[in-house]
């Protein structure tokens, strides 16, 4: 380690919380995009917000790049270290500072795990709506940086729609506080700009989240179809009827096979696709809407419809759905999770094209997606032992992303650009638009030290590493969605 840097951090943190030995650094070299790895100069482990501020100011003074890190579950390489930079590990800043049942808000430190917010709010009949499938491990700080989503975005929105206030230390060392405990604000929405900035502006220190009352009733239906198109048409019919379900999800045959193998999920025989629709609300409303939904689904020609009769059956439906990603690990040791968006009406066409491109590339693709949002998650299966295995999978992933943009959609719905998709940003934005974003970035971070090499095209590629599941998935701690 450079002695100057070492000395400076030693004056901020005890030596035990400045990790420099290779064995200690190993756990931080990758994130959820586990095909790549980079070794940082050091990992620092602050325990207070004041320490984070000091660390960032030290990085500024030393012009050392830093990467904030929550649980490292980013699927786009967002939390991958910068070579010879600092990793600021935020997991010890894990205090829920307050749950206010009257104002229906939570004030949390960035290292608080997503699911813990809902767990703490449950006693008051409240919950935190954004529910990425990594919610049992991913942190609010990471969610804020990536504006993370989940299965309920169409109705309740993404992380950004639930962040009321942010206190952060910017890469300049300035500490700012935007928004607050009110659900409204006046003036430009700085909080909205910070959310989704992928760690390129600075480090969030404290976040105010809005909480919602837990819906009184859920009604979840699983329907099997003989083709993906038929399932897609059913989604359109639900939307056309004016219903606004809490969730509208589709799994294709390969994803169903995987879920069946992994968690013994049981699907209507012969299904090429399964649609999951969930209504939520007061019982009076759900009772009326469920009859309407049943009519629509019956008219959509399903092989079979299975409404959940109790919370146990509902949980089983969701277990199959939420396990689908890691379950694909049973079909192939190596796979890439993609994340793109197309206009909803073009879902069927998009899936057909993905199928065609996959066969041309000689690769298998399983599809699990948030059909209500047009948010695709193609899982590209490949063999990492073949010399060009990963390269071919990445080429197909790139083709899929370009197709999304051509259809008027987006290169990412919820996983962020990170390192992985930075070269696709120009497919979506013009040179002027990227320049505008870079100017904004420079306003927050004139030295370019906050998570450099992410989001914007160019920059050094990190080294290839191992393949397969995230270490936490292998341990069965988290599952993909």
């Amino acid at each position, binding site marked *: 380690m450079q002695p100057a840097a070492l000395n400076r951090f030693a004056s901020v943190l005890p030596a035990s919380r400045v990790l420099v030995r290779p064995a200690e650094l190993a756990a931080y070299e990758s994130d959820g995009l586990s095909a790549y790895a980079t070794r940082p100069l050091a990992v620092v482990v602050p325990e207070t917000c004041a320490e984070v501020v000091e660390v960032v100011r030290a990085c500024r003074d030393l012009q050392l790049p830093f990467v904030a890190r929550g649980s490292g579950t980013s699927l786009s390489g967002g939390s991958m270290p910068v070579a010879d930079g600092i990793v600021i590990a935020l997991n010890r800043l894990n205090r829920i500072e307050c749950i206010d049942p009257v104002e229906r808000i939570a004030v949390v430190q960035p290292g608080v795990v997503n699911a813990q917010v809902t767990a703490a709010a449950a006693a008051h009949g409240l919950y935190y709506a954004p529910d990425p499938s990594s919610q049992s491990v991913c942190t609010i700080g990471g969610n804020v940086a*990536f504006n993370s989503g989940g299965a309920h975005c169409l109705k309740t929105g993404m992380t950004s729609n639930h962040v009321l206030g942010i206190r952060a230390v910017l890469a300049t060392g300035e500490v700012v506080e935007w928004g607050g405990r009110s659900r409204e604000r006046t003036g430009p929405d700085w909080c909205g700009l910070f959310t989704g900035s992928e760690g390129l502006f600075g480090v969030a220190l404290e976040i105010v989240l809005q909480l919602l009352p837990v819906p009184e009733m859920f009604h979840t239906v699983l329907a099997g179809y003989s083709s993906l198109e038929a399932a897609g048409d059913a989604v359109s019919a639900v939307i*056309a009827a004016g219903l606004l379900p809490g969730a509208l999800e589709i799994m294709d045959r390969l994803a169903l096979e995987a879920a069946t193998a992994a968690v013994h999920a049981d699907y209507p025989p012969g299904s090429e696709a399964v649609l999951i629709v969930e209504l939520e609300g*007061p019982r*009076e409303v759900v009772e009326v809407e469920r009859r309407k939904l049943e009519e629509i689904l019956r008219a959509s020609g399903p092989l079979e419809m299975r409404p959940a009769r109790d919370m146990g059956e509902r949980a089983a439906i969701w277990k199959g759905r939420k396990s689908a990603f890691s379950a694909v690990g049973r079909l192939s040791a190596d796979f890439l999770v993609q994340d793109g968006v197309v*206009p909803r009406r073009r879902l069927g066409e998009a899936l057909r094209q993905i199928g065609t491109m996959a066969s041309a590339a000689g690769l298998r693709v399983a599809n699990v997606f948030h059909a209500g*949002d047009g948010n695709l998650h193609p899982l590209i299966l490949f063999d990492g032992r073949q010399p060009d295995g990963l390269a071919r999978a990445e080429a197909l992933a790139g083709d899929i992303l370009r197709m999304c943009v051509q259809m008027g959609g987006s290169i990412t719905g919820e996983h962020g650009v990170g390192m992985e998709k930075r070269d696709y940003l120009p497919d*979506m934005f013009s040179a002027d638009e990227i320049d505008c974003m870079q100017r904004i970035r420079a306003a927050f971070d004139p030295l370019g030290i906050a998570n450099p090499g992410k989001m914007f095209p160019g920059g050094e590629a990190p080294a290839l590493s191992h393949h397969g599941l995230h270490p936490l998935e292998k341990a069965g701690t988290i599952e993909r969605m």
Partner: protein
Amino acid sequence: MFEPATLAELQDAVRGAPRVLCVGAGTKPRLSAVEGVRISTRQLCGIVEYDPAEFTFTALAGTPLAEIVAVLAEQGQHLPFDPVLVEAGSTLGGAVASGLSGPGRFRFGGVRDFLLGVQCVDGLGRLLRLGGKVVKNAAGFDVPKFVVGSLGRFAAIGAVTFKVFPRPAATRTLSLPARPGLLERLAAGRWNIDAIDIPPGGQRVLVRLVGPEEALEPLAADLLRALSAGDDAAEVAPEFWNDLREFRWALPTGVLVKSAITPGQVGDFTAGHVSCGGNVAYTSVATAAEIPAHLVGLTLTGNAPLWVGGRPRYAVEAAVKQAFDPDHRFPSLDD
């Protein structure tokens, strides 16, 4: 004054004078009461794209909200945040730049939560399309959100893309006598309430229930029973919301200030209109001299400082202004 009719003409207009500011219908006059050549968005008008099945539309900035509301209603859809000053002639771009949402903000969020994308001209005269056109997008910085409430001080808004929702089949409005703790009980209840407002005077609480017609009767009855609202509760006509949205209660030539508050502060604002379950307050006074000392907020109309009670200032804010508008073609937030 410039009157661009296309986005290219908007670029020309921005480049056309050293100091410019977009104005819509001028329904929040204090926000544009600054020196500079006006760029009227009157001609920059029309819905560019609307696909009900996608839950999205794109329209030019000068499109009247009334037109948007009507076109969406034909397809059984709406902007759930309940835009304000619709009848007064307010434009879509003005709603975004001012960041004003109506009572419906309570349930699903405000303008910021439904704005997906923006086409704007920065201070360098470049037309930029930021955000996306689909209901979900996480690529690039969320500039559309930043533009909400930015008062045209960073870029000129040319067109916007919004997410919309199906319009509830039916609505029902109850008026309850105000009492301590009522807001919280309503907000945390099981009834899925769409809006909770306290009209000026602070005596009543307006509650809007939405859903299928046949569900609303039992839902309303249950709500009244659970809160023992008793004889003093009444069902009222939906026009009440309209009067609030149009600020018909405010002094016509006075000062109107918007404040972001928390439910705990509601007691300080009983003279004005408290909206969004106690998260927004509007105060109307005859002159700036009568503005209560504790008030912090944004002046929408009348002769008073733009930022009542001041606003926080950070070095980065000036730097971001510089990034969008290095030659200061647009006024600053303090002008």
